[in-house]
């Protein structure tokens, strides 16, 4: 449980809040590349960390993320014309470039220099791995580009999707490190989902419903190891990395693509659940990509034309009580992504952690909160850059492997836990 003040501290990410300041130290996924497919395409409204922004790609292909509202009389620039290297407001014709600089105020003589005096807030937007990333902090602290493996492998080896989740980012992210739910909530999917089934390691999962956990810190966050008994005096380990503040990895299965999430706050009551899938050494197959597009694995199907899941709270997530009763799904909800999302949304817009009753096996969650609080305080009080900003911290890999029983996985899996170009993931 958390005290109310601690819960507020961790959940609030608007400008000026301690966690908001901390989030503004990192590059974060803002949009999919597909949302801005070509020069002069329609602009896209984006809300992140409580700020309403507008993303666009100008005539030369340059990317911009700027204040959504026109500096003249405040209309949304979503209505603007994207033309000749800028967004022109349809109301009175003011025009802004990708840096937010006003470049034309038609009512004023050009020579007056009036336009130069007007500039909208803007943030850098870069394209990497099919994702558009932004950094919303002070320019002097802008870190080097993100180096998560899913965004550095060739594009044909990676696939990302996003879905809107109607709850605070923290309860969503906590789901990503809550290893003990997998044996329950997702048990039906190990055997059936095309992106999970068939891995040799699955039998250890299904054979042992109460794994034992070891939590260790690493430079960028945490490693959460779950072990189960395996033959020949070994343990089957599944190691989940968490990179601060909101990147989580799911340990791999067989030669299936590796997946995981980014949990990015939209505002205090909603977040983007990003889902990535990649393979370090080979292109994704057509059937894998098709399965991802069809909402298999950790991806979801959408309400057409949106990033809102087709199963959502307005239709009770398409609850199927017959499937629940028959054990085809444990919760009655179809698909791993929606199994998680439905329950996390059910916790309320901001989970009231004063009422929870944690147990020893929840230590991963307890420690993640503790590290977040410490880091946000250290940033605020001493200006210490938080863990996870350094791109070296991004190069961690999830792993699933067998180790002798007396070996500490941080050492036994040392190589396996590092992303290395051209080296296959450690997975059984």
């Amino acid at each position, binding site marked *: 449980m958390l005290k109310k003040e601690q819960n507020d501290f961790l959940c609030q990410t608007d400008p000026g809040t301690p966690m908001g300041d901390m989030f503004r130290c990192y590059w974060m996924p803002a949009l999919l590349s597909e949302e801005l497919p070509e020069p002069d395409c329609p602009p896209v409204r984006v809300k992140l960390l409580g700020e309403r922004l507008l993303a666009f790609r100008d005539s030369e292909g340059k990317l911009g993320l700027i204040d959504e509202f026109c500096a003249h009389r405040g209309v949304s620039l979503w209505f603007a014309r994207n033309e000749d290297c800028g967004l022109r407001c349809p109301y009175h014709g003011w025009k802004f470039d990708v840096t937010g600089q006003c470049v034309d105020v038609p009512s004023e003589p050009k020579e007056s220099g009036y336009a130069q005096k007007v500039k909208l807030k803007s943030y850098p937007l870069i394209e990497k791995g099919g994702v558009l990333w932004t950094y919303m902090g002070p320019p002097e602290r802008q870190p080097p580009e993100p180096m998560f493996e899913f965004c550095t492998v060739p594009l044909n080896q990676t696939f990302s999707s996003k879905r809107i989740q109607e709850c605070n980012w923290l309860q969503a992210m906590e789901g990503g490190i809550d290893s003990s739910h997998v044996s329950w909530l997702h048990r039906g999917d190990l055997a059936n989902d095309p992106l999970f089934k068939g891995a040799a390691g699955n039998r250890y999962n299904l054979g042992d419903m109460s794994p034992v956990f070891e939590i260790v810190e690493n430079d960028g966050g945490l490693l959460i190891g779950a072990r189960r008994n395996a033959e020949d005096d070994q343990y089957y380990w599944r190691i989940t990395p968490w990179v601060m503040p909101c990147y989580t990895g799911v340990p791999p299965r067989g030669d299936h693509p590796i997946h995981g999430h980014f949990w990015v706050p939209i505002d205090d009551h909603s977040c983007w659940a990003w889902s990535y899938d990649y393979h370090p050494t080979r292109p994704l197959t057509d059937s894998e990509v098709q399965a991802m597009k069809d909402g298999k694995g950790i991806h979801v199907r959408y309400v057409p034309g949106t990033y809102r899941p087709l199963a959502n709270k*307005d239709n009770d997530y398409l609850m199927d009580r017959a499937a629940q009763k028959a054990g085809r799904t444990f919760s009655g909800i179809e698909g791993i992504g929606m199994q998680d999302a439905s329950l996390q949304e059910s916790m309320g817009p901001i989970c*009231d952690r004063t009422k929870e009753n944690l147990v020893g096996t929840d230590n991963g969650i307890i420690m993640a909160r503790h590290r977040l609080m410490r880091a946000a305080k250290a940033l605020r009080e001493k200006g210490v850059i938080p863990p996870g900003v350094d791109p070296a911290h991004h190069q961690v890999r999830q792993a699933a492997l067998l180790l002798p029983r007396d070996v500490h996985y941080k050492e036994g899996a040392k190589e396996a836990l590092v992303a290395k170009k051209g080296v296959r993931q450690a997975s059984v």
Partner: protein
Amino acid sequence: MQSESARVTTAREAGYRIQYPNSKTRSVKVIALDPASAKLVDEISQEPWNGARFFTALSFSADGEPGATGAGLQAWLQDIAGRTMSLVEEIASSDFVVVVTSAGEDARAVSVIADACALHHKSLVALVAPGEGASDADVSASMAHLRPFARMLVIAHAPDYISAMLTALRA
């Protein structure tokens, strides 16, 4: 729409929680396994707790036959006031047990504690507090020692983690 969830539209409604307590106080027993962690546990015990009790295994001695289990298991703990208590009784009256060790220290007492926990079906959380200057090898050695006995094994570098964890567990 007829479904109840569709009516839960505002954030306020969705966030509603009934205001009654949903659990009772737990009895948590925290046991330091070695002198260095005993100091740590002693400090933590000074904070206000919801009934958590703190012990050291300093005066630990397994009476009777070594390796005795079941009814033959006899061992002693020392509480913070220096009183000697029966390990088995303390564990029998607990809801769960936390053991703390400093990296590289002698943590052998854990095996008897784990036996007592097994006897009374209590879960055991083990924390390694590396302390200053502990090497990776020390940490690994402590982990290897605790691994067979704990449902959850945590390496906690932050000095205030143990009390943060106990607070989170409503200890």
